[in-house]
């Protein structure tokens, strides 16, 4: 059975801290891994990772995929209170119409 596991499930930090969120997966016919940020409403797309070892960056956020060890990390540097959200990791298969298999999410709280 396909599985995506995120850790930690919950994290509380102070503004300015750097955080690393983890996502491991066991997915047959794996194609890519996606990261989303979900605040009160819709998950918003952050990154799509298909190739191993290539870091993707967007401002203070960056992410990388390791297809050998089957995991990905999402880094956030110089955290701000606006980074508080649930961060979802999801795997996409080559088959099954590219539907997402989600992890449970990491609840990040950034305190001022």
């Amino acid at each position: 059975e396909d599985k995506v596991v995120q850790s930690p499930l919950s994290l509380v930090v102070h503004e300015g801290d750097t955080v690393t969120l983890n996502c491991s997966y066991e997915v047959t016919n794996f194609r890519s891994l996606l990261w989303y940020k979900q605040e009160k409403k819709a998950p918003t797309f952050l990154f799509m990772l298909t190739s191993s070892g290539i870091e993707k960056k967007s401002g203070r956020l960056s992410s990388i995929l390791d297809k050998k060890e089957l995991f990905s990390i999402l880094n956030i540097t110089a955290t701000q209170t606006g980074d508080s959200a649930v961060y979802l990791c999801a795997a996409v298969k080559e088959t099954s119409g590219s539907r997402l298999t989600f992890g449970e999410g990491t609840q990040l709280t950034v305190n001022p």
Partner: protein
Amino acid sequence: GAGVSQSPRYKVAKRGRDVALRCDSISGHVTLYWYRQTLGQGSEVLTYSQSDAQRDKSGRPSGRFSAERPERSVSTLKIQRTEQGDSAVYLCASSQGCNQPQHFGDGTRLSIL
């Protein structure tokens, strides 16, 4: 706006009734997905449809969930004989294609009494 739009935002229904939730996807997106989010089980796919297919390809074994797509950018998720366990947030997402990221609507929060 140009994003995925879902309606209603909130829905309350009595157990046993059928409900229908609407999704207007992004113009030009060919693939459309319905997911369910609950505190206990996280997010799981319910159905998805591709291009001009009007009927869903169910991601779940339960026959109570189905989706129809009368137009390419519109989908209706139907839940028959609702159960209390169906109380959740239902998210719709669309993408330009299989290798493109999915973009989500704000969801419909369904409460079954």
